[in-house]
């Protein structure tokens, strides 16, 4: 192999790596490896001075390979590839060693072993990078149409944003109307805007916008292709109706949430005690304008119970975020409608973060809501009152602040049901090829830096299908997703990663085993040549065919056999 000039950079990541891994000793050791022209350690390789260091070395020392030992490549591979490009070498002549997420952070107590492992990973990256080849991206056309799944506040907002920028949008909704869960609400906390007004504005504009086509009672059946060139099949609920086939460049998934089923908590008697209702049922009551018990009387005692299904090991561990403020809204609304009604608010912790929320909490205290705190692993018990009790129900609670077990009267109990992932979220995730977290929520490409993109290019997520959130956050995400898509459309063409499989025709025996294996039908068989070949733009580089080819005729670019063997040798050296 020709002589190479490799630059190796070991990041301290402040103290994140340096605290556990002796970066300087790695520099010292790798510098002795043949072809390593320069080895340095630095506080933050990803910072501007860090990247400039690489760029200057590429130019000054004529480096032709770069290794950075730092965080996960999922974090900064792109950053350093771009630095290589700026320095004047092909971005694929770079390799990263993950010595933070997969080393310093997980072996914090053992500096010696962590350093030895970090060295092994760095050596593996050096061996691998020797085998790297320059790769060039392909370009493909970007279809400017977008498919939006779900017509709640997030989906409608994303659709409008894209359509008003002049691009066609198809808005697909499973039910028979627009609005999603928001259409079931009355007023919204903390500013008490009417949900109906908020939605009306969106719906009117959607109707007035020509390039949005709305498909109600419809669902995505299949999605094939790749960013810029997806083919979506939409099925109508009516089995006799034809399936619609759409050509779209991007997809926004905004399929929302469903509420927790209160009947799952038997202590609360939901479904058995007529005046124990969910927050959604109470919203419906508010929209009709009268707060009444099932018997048609105004309640004299109302109780609101927080965290129904949320923040609890048995059901969902997470906080549903909107229920605390909604509960406070109920307290104010009940007091407004029936001033003599006693309102008790049974909570675990009051989560009043966000704009205007702390003031809203204060206002609820001022209207004389009785706040009672219960423990996270306990639960108030509701039972029917005896005839002499002067109320419909009694709630027993171990009140934490007073330390006493108390009993409070109630004629109406409102359960603040949390949000959960929809039953069909797994199916949607599979159709558009994105991941779900342990609770069923769709996963972001990066939770902080790339919160609306997913690991599949061209598929974006917004609103409460990602995690519980309020209206402003859903709207912000929807606009962010639309913004990302507009950015891609503005570029006109899309670049497709230079990483894909290719067939060496001289070695291909024409057995066609790979044709069947490819999940994207990206391998075609040339009948005249009797050889298979890969359609690069359709290949997603999984490498399945590469491992399966009995003749070893398929090369998985950037994950070649030689590159992986070199890495194996490196980690074990």
């Amino acid at each position: 192999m020709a002589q190479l000039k490799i630059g190796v950079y070991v990041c301290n990541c402040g103290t994140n790596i340096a605290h556990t891994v002796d970066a300087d000793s790695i520099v010292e050791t790798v510098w002795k490896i043949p072809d390593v022209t320069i080895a340095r350690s630095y506080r933050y390789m990803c910072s501007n001075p860090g990247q400039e260091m690489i760029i200057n070395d590429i130019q000054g020392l004529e480096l032709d390979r770069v290794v950075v030992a730092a965080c996960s490549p999922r974090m900064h591979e792109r950053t350093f590839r771009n630095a290589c490009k700026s320095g004047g070498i092909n971005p694929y002549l770079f390799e990263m060693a993950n010595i933070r997420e997969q080393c310093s952070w997980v072996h914090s107590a053992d500096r010696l072993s962590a350093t030895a492992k970090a060295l092994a990973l760095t050596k593996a990256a050096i061996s691998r990078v020797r085998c790297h080849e320059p790769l060039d991206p392909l370009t493909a056309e970007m279809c400017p149409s977008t498919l939006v799944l779900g017509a709640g506040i997030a989906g409608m907002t994303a659709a409008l944003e894209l359509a008003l920028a002049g691009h066609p949008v198809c808005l697909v909704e499973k039910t028979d109307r627009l609005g999603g869960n928001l259409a079931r609400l009355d007023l919204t906390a903390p500013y008490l805007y009417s949900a109906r007004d908020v939605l009306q504005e969106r719906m009117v504009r959607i109707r007035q916008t020509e390039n949005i086509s709305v498909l109600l009672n419809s669902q995505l059946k299949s999605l094939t292709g790749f960013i810029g060139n997806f083919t979506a099949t939409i099925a109508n609920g009516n089995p006799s109706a034809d399936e619609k086939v759409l050509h779209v460049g991007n997809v926004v998934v905004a399929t929302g949430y469903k509420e927790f089923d209160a009947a799952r908590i038997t202590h609360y008697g939901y479904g058995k005690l007529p005046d124990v209702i969910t927050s959604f049922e109470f919203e419906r009551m508010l929209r009709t304008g009268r707060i009444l018990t099932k018997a048609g009387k105004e309640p004299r005692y109302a109780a609101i119970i927080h965290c129904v299904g949320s923040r609890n090991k048995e059901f969902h561990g997470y906080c549903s975020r909107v229920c605390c403020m909604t509960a406070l809204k109920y307290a104010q609304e009940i007091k407004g409608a029936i001033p003599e009604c006693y309102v008790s608010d049974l909570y675990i912790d009051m989560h009043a973060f966000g704009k205007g929320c702390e003031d809203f909490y204060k206002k609820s205290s001022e209207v004389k809501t009785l706040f009672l705190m219960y423990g996270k692993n306990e639960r108030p018990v509701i039972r029917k009152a005896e005839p002499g009790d002067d109320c419909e129900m009694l709630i027993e609670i171990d009140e934490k602040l007073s330390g006493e077990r108390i009993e409070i009267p109630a004629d109406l109990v409102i359960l603040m049901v949390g949000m959960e992932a929809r039953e069909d979220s797994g199916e949607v995730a599979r159709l558009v090829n994105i991941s779900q977290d342990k609770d069923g929520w769709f996963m972001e490409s990066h939770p902080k830096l790339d919160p609306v993109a997913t690991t599949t290019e061209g598929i974006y997520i917004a609103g409460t299908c990602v995690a519980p959130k309020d209206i402003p956050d859903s709207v912000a995400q929807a606009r962010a997703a639309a913004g990302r898509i507009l950015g891609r459309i503005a570029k006109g063409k899309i670049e497709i990663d230079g990483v894909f499989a290719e067939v060496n025709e001289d070695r291909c025996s024409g057995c066609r085993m790979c044709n069947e294996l490819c999940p994207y039908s990206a391998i075609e068989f040339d009948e005249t040549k009797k050889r298979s070949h890969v359609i690069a733009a359709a290949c997603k580089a999984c490498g399945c065919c590469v491992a399966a080819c009995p003749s070893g005729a398929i090369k998985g670019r950037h994950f070649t056999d030689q590159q992986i063997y070199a890495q194996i040798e490196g980690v074990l050296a």
Partner: protein
Amino acid sequence: MSYEPKIVGFLCNWCSYTGADLAGTSRIQYPPSIRIIRVMCSARIDPTFVIDALAQGADGVLICGCHPGDCHYSEGNYKAMRRFPLLKKLLRSYGVEEERVRQTWVSASEGQRFADVVTDMTERVRALGPSRIHRNLLADVRER
């Protein structure tokens, strides 16, 4: 000093490698025995990679991919799953103990599970002691 085995882990990029990263961001501690090699999909793991790793001195090999039904490439993990028993059969004939090579599924949200898998496997391999596989195996593999 107690014997620390060397385990090579082949992890798919989308689920397991991300799960391993999550173990890191969550600061979940596990033994430093594992050396991770990233592949895009568990279906890319050529059985010869596993044999090569053993021949090069790995005491164990761990293969991790997305859970069945959850593959980023829709069905790559099923292909990996089907290949595995054949590989195990071959390894048995070479005298490789059952517990040195393991295939399991770790999702992107299972940082804790990844740490548990590594911890468990390290203990099992530690109990077996250093691998006795002859280095001549290497020649056989690289012939291909």
